[in-house]
């Protein structure tokens, strides 16, 4: 029983309820402040939890020599809460964290905190801040819950908790100019992800039929080793369900619309955190519970991920909308993560985990920047915004270039290590996998990195550079405001820090 972890889950949810309970006028005024304070507390709490987890005499710092090579993703739970919940269905309220989930929880807390902070000054045009902040907090609860659930049904429940608030965020606070579009985007998002999680639940039920347990901790130490038959069906269902969320090509179609139409904070959370639910689920559930069947489907997963890298990059090359472009870049980056998971090798999984965090930070920053540019020009169409942002908004332009360089995987910035380790994992994949196939994936993904560079440079060229005489500065356009600097600074610092000091995270995953 760990009160800290439960508090991390309960506090945002209760705060959301409290906000809705407040009278409307008061609620509107204090929403962002309350949200910032509470999410700040959650961030501090997750920091404390992290410290307790990894402190030298702590329970869960495992190094390579400590234990024999186990299955990837095996749970070494800490801060566990395990009480019976629905006995007739064999469902337990089982929470717990380990070094795989802890960084993701911290990332969630950080991004929600920054979104609330950002909302202190910069609000969507639709107003209704009280509900927006409350929904963000509900999303926080759901995401942290998903990352800490150690019961399949509980995992599914938290997974679902996230969807509806995000749907509302897109639908209500989305793009002002395109009501039908944002409604369509929100509906597509919610329908596709709900369909995916329904399939996932079906897979969970099959797992229960095979093994008689929903408990992830038990399952990861007693995996279903044989392959084929019902296990394969379960693995396929779970993989497809999670792949929708990730999203894997060709199930990604909801993503560009949802990201492009969502408000800035929505895009940040969607790209920064929500996509990680899928990849986390694969590492946490698919690989450890059904290793044999995962090995059967891994080449296909890897192949689709590679296609995603190429297709996402190519699609970016032809985009004319900055938010859509960044959204499509997520398809490519999540393709790298998918490839890393598919390799089933320690390096690949480490890379996927690292890329999860790095992508959350960098894409969060990119969406913040895209939102800032969109707010200033009232459009996210590249042709309407015009060129020469360096001349009009030098600081934002510079930061955009920085974020683009980080996102294209420049060594020395956070984006590199994940991609590098994924490719290294593909160079020698897990024992059960066909190596030649993965070598091909590696080479194609390598070409994908060049394409990634190409579209980001194209973005910089078409947006930041250009003759300022043709695109005079608008009078109202102010460069980087203070609140933006404050909200973005942690992301910038982390991008550089993780790029130069990857051991900060890598050291926790040496048991993989």
């Amino acid at each position, binding site marked *: 029983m760990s009160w800290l972890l439960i508090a991390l889950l309960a506090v945002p949810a209760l705060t959301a309820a409290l906000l809705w309970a407040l009278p409307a006028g008061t609620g509107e005024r204090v929403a962002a402040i309350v949200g910032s304070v509470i999410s700040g507390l959650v961030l501090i709490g997750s920091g404390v939890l992290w410290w307790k987890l990894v402190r030298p005499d702590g329970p869960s710092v495992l*190094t*390579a020599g400590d234990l024999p*090579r186990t299955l990837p993703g095996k749970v070494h739970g800490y801060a566990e809460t395990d009480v019976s919940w629905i006995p007739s269905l064999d469902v337990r309220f089982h929470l717990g964290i380990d070094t795989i989930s802890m960084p993701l929880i911290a990332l969630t807390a950080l991004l929600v905190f920054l979104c609330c902070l950002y909302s202190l000054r910069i609000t969507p045009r639709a107003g209704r801040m009280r509900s927006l902040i409350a929904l963000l907090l509900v999303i926080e609860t759901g995401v942290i819950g998903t990352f800490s659930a150690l019961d399949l049904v509980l995992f599914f429940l938290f997974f679902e908790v996230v969807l509806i608030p995000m749907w509302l965020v897109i639908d209500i606070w989305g793009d002002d100019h395109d009501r039908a579009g944002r409604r369509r985007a929100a509906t*597509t998002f919610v*329908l*596709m992800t709900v369909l995916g999680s329904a399939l996932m639940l079906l897979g969970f039920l099959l797992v229960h039929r095979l093994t008689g347990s929903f408990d992830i901790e038990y399952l990861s130490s007693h995996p279903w080793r044989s392959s084929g038959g019902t296990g394969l069906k379960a693995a396929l269902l779970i993989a497809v369900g999670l792949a929708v969320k990730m999203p894997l090509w*060709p199930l*990604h*179609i*909801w993503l*560009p619309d949802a990201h492009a139409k969502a408000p800035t904070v929505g895009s940040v959370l969607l790209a920064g955190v929500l996509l990680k639910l899928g990849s986390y689920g694969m590492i946490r559930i698919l690989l450890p519970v059904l290793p044999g069947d995962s090995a059967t489907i891994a080449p296909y997963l890897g192949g689709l991920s590679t296609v995603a890298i190429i*297709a996402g990059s*190519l*699609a*970016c*090359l*032809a*985009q004319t909308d900055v938010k859509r472009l960044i959204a499509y870049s997520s398809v490519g980056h999540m393709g790298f993560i998918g490839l890393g998971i598919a390799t089933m*090798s*320690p*390096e*690949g*999984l*480490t*890379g996927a985990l690292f890329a999860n965090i790095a992508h959350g930070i960098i894409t969060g920053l990119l969406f913040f920047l895209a939102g800032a540019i969109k707010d200033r020009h009232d459009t996210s169409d590249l042709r309407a915004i015009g060129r020469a942002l360096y001349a009009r908004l030098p600081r934002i332009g*510079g930061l955009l*270039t920085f974020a683009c360089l980080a996102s294209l995987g*420049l*060594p*020395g910035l956070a984006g*590199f290590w994940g991609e590098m*380790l994924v*490719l*290294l*994992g593909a*160079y*020698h994949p897990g024992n059960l996998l066909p190596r030649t196939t993965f070598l091909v994936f*590696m*080479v194609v993904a*390598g*070409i994908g*990195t*060049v*394409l990634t*560079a*190409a579209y980001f*440079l194209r973005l910089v060229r078409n947006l*930041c*550079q*250009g*003759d*300022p005489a043709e695109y005079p500065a608008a009078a109202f356009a102010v460069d980087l405001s203070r609140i933006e600097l404050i909200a973005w600074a942690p992301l910038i610092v982390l991008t550089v820090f993780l790029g130069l*000091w*990857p*051991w900060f995270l*890598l050291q926790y*995953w*040496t*048991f*993989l």
Partner: protein
Amino acid sequence: MIATAWRVIGVGFSLLVILTAALLHGVDPQQADFAGSYAGIHTYISFGVRTDDLTVLMLAVVGVVSACVQVYSIGYLEKRVASYTALVTLFTAAMVTVVVSDSLFLLLIGWEVMGACSYLLIGHYWERQDARAGAMKAFLMTRLGDVGFLFGIFVLGVAGDTFRISDLHADQMSSPALTAGTLLLLVGVVGKSAQVPLQTWLPDAMPGPSPVSALIHAATMVAAGVFVIARLFDLFTAADATLTVLAIVACVTMVFAALCAMAAVEVKRVLAWSTVSQLAIMFAGLSLGTRDGRHAALFHLLTHAAFKGLLFLCAGVLLHQVGSAAFVVLRRYTRRGVLRKAMPVTFVTMTIGLGALAGVPGLAGFFSKDSVVEAAWDHARDGSTVGWVVLVSVCLTAVMTAFYCVRLWLWVFFRTPALAGALGAFEADDPMADLEDPDTSKLHDGSWLMLAPLILLAIAAAGLGYADGVHIDWPIALVTTVLALFGALPAYSLWQRGADPRPVLLEREFGVDSAYQRLFVVPVQWFAKLAVGGDRDVIGGYVRAAGKAGTLASEGFRRLQTGNVQTYLTAAVVGVVALAILAGVIGS
């Protein structure tokens, strides 16, 4: 204020690099890890540094050139100084990282950060279309090579079970892995050092500020390729196939680039092609696989850094004062003989630089090129085909180098006696040829901040040849001098006749660029459209069709809702009857 701070930091950093080099000079080779972790269970990734002769040499080169560039830039650059100086400093730091690194990954970080910095610096004048395009091209082509480099690191690191450079030994690796790894590394080197077939980015990078060109061409970026091969020389010598490939690439490149330089009509472009060519000479020296060859290559790297840095800084002065480095524009000044008189320091230092490049006896380039030729000759005498090929190519390149140096020197600084003040061969290209003479009264040498680095580098370009201890193989010296004369004389006679024949093939640089455009860029754009269209019309089509099917189904069911109670009732009775029959059938 910020700009000043950055300038101080920049110059200070460069001096610090020089100081470090001085302190490390003579210290025994050693290495140390300062951070590291397992990634997964059996891959250890660490950052480490090392020092040895190569490190010290490169540190000194990088420090001196970057100090010169930083000081020079104070006079050269007027706007966006802070970002520029910061990037140049970062650039230098990245090169220093490459040089001191003992970890393949740390090396890669420096290696690619350099690429990014060069991208940003080439695009410094982002108002200009050619600068934007050149910057993007530079980054993408080097990045393409870097993918190969990364894979090479994988192959070598996995085969050697370590990513620490000092622990990589050829004898612990299988021969195929060694060959594959070094070949993949070579891809990265080719990209970074602009060798064939990834050569086209370097000439296109010329719209960047001249000091940046000096930095890229002399000490950092392109030299990093040579450095890496020198650093991993043991691995490369153990992989014969790689060395052969390297030799072929180098020989093709040096001749190709020299040919392109012979037809270029802009000072910086000539210099850029000459860099490609000279780098190929260094690679040729390395490809011999002998100690002598490596030594010669590094010697050439050293002297090349001096005279190429000098030449680019001189071109920068021309650009700064005249506003362009194109032959046509410079000729307008030269036809009255003004340029030489107005800029005596530039003229003298540039003459020394060109002399060193062309291999005028006594200047630095002469000695270093001779040492390459000598190493090739030694190797060739041992019965090596590679040695012969390299020998012939370097000699051929020496002829062409002399040709384009003399051509550049004469056309830029001297009026043609035969033409009596005309523009000469460039007249046809110049829309302003008939205009009045340009205003030359304001033409003068740059400020001393710009001239001091020139003079320093000129001294180096003249004197570095003696740094290695003078040992001259007289027959070879004689042959190369004669070859240089062979190249210089046609250039002189053409100039005197006012003619400058430029074959179309050379002027288009063998059409490589447009071929790449057609082969890669256009298909990629086409595929991009395909990807977007596919997403919208195929994948999105399925999703929309699913939605449409639901809507249509609901439409159909809605039609049953006629509002007529009797219809409902009929349906209900039919249902009851059907159920009753069903129950009877099942029950019986």
